[in-house]
């Protein structure tokens, strides 16, 4: 097990290195680049711009800049925001909780609803329910998340007036109930696509398990079909879903960005868009790295959990 953990950890670090280089190269080589900000202000001479470039170390070769930036990054110095002079890590940290809360709630919703639909579809394979859910899932996958958010606001906030249309809490009323009321719409909107994906994969996974020998044995032993379903099928078909949960992190994170925009949710997605608007390179870069880091951690955690549950994996 230890060997498996170490080798997976090593792979993740190599990946982090490549990821950070791609992210760095994309932002540094982009036309305009960090200096375009200053070039726009009137009265700036080329000399002054060159001087700023020199002060910021932007006239050095790309790989020197990258190594410099990377060594700072792994020691926890992610630079300072151009916008308000705060350390980047601090800025990201103050937005992290809102995003994780949104993602966590949405994932809980989609895992529970999606898995239930998937299991039901699998045991009633070919039924009207199964067919309807197959088509519904494909349509759900085709609806743009942000548009679904707009429609949800139109129906549940503007017409029915049941739920707030945005923000994370009402000023002056920051009770748990108030947070919950604000959380329901964005979390459900974000969960929709994932419910579809989970139900599809859970259906396939359950079908695979149903045809295995140990299920036939359990049936042959005379266990009731409910017991077989709950004790033997559900647990085993959930195992591959752990990998899926890890692989879904980038999608949920991307969806959170768009959902946060529509619902003015104060998380990393909104911060990313605001920072783009201000050409706040250090924060944009930091968020790109933070999101990739979340994805890598998600995948690593999923793989280790699988190895813990299923010994066949770590012997590979």
């Amino acid at each position: 097990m230890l060997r498996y953990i170490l080798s997976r950890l090593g792979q993740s670090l190599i990946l982090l290195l490549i990821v950070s280089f791609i992210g760095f190269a994309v932002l540094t080589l982009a036309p305009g680049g960090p200096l375009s900000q200053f070039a726009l202000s009137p009265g700036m001479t080329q000399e002054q711009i060159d001087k700023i470039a020199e002060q910021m170390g932007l006239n050095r070769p790309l790989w020197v800049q990258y190594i410099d930036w990377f060594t700072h990054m792994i020691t926890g110095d992610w630079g300072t925001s151009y916008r308000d002079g705060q350390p980047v890590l601090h800025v990201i940290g103050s937005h992290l909780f809102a995003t994780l809360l949104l993602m966590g709630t949405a994932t809980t919703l989609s895992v529970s609803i999606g898995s239930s639909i998937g299991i039901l579809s699998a045991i009633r394979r070919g039924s009207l329910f199964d067919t309807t859910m197959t088509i519904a899932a494909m349509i759900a996958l085709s609806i743009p998340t942000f548009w679904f958010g707009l429609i949800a606001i139109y129906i549940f906030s503007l017409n029915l007036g049941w739920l707030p249309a945005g923000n994370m809490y009402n000023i002056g009323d920051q009770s748990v109930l108030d947070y919950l009321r604000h959380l329901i719409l964005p979390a459900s909107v974000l969960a929709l696509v994932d419910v579809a994906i989970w139900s599809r994969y859970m259906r396939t996974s359950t079908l695979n398990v149903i045809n295995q020998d140990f299920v036939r044995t359990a049936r042959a032993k005379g266990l009731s079909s409910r017991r077989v379903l709950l004790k033997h099928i559900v647990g085993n078909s959930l195992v591959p879903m752990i990998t899926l949960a890890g692989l879904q992190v980038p999608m949920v994170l991307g969806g959170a960005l768009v959902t946060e925009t529509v619902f003015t949710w104060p998380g990393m997605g909104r911060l990313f868009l605001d920072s783009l608007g201000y050409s706040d390179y250090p924060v944009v870069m930091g968020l790109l790295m933070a999101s990739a880091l979340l994805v890598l951690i998600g995948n690593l955690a999923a793989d280790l959990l699988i190895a813990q549950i299923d010994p066949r994996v770590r012997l590979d």
Partner: protein
Amino acid sequence: MTSAPLTSPVRRPLIQSRALRRFLSHRLALIGVIMVLSLTLACFIGPHLLPYDELHIDLRARFAPPGTGGHIFGTDPLGRDIAARLFHAGQISMAVGFAVMIIATAFGSVVGVISGYYGGRVSAVLMRIVDAFLSFPSVFLLLALAAFIQPSPVMIALIISATSWMEVARIVEAEVKSLRNQDFVQAAHMLGLSGRWIMFRELLPNAIGPIIVAASLTVARAILLEAYISFLGYGIQPPLPSWGNMLNGAQQYLASAPWLAIVPGVAITIAVTGFNFIGDGLRDAFDSRSGGR
């Protein structure tokens, strides 16, 4: 001495193939084809049948609800006809979708076939790069790219491709790896054919099924991604309409003019659903294992 003509395994033309027959008997796929075809026809013929063109501004007719004054889908805050804009936008959004399909599929296939054919260190490096690109949420990477370039439709298609080629690369790599040791490839080696010939004339054509499936799903994905970034203001720029940028700004008029948000969103959903249905049908058609589900 000239080498003997190569007889390759009999490959039936696509038109007579079992895959095509299976695709045509897939009901959902046919519905998808109909959805995509009718939307395409509407986008290209529609503008000629409407009384207004997409740039005609009429401030007296601002926010006209659908069905009034000859505006079947109503008008926008500048009094422009939404139907005319929607059809014009559809041409652009679908063109972007198809461009991404071609660029991303071609690039992904090349990466995949090289990685699968050479294996070893080449494959390790290429596939780690694929993994790295997959580690970014694509919307983040896309916005970071889009914010700093001149957002012409061509550039938008290029950057969406830059975040969409990885799936194809993975699929082709796996396919080529499994084909690499088969007899016909060994035979090609013994005939002294070049690596490039074997990769692109022997291996790639045999992986065509999964590539076509991935390509159809890539169109759906590209239309969605274009809508995302245009909605956020970093995609196709006005006055050029796209389905995404028609939704940009719709949120502030949600209470007074909901059709601004509803109409383009429905168009996007129809287009993307159509391509997803087609992709599903193609998958069943090419994959005999899932044929009888």
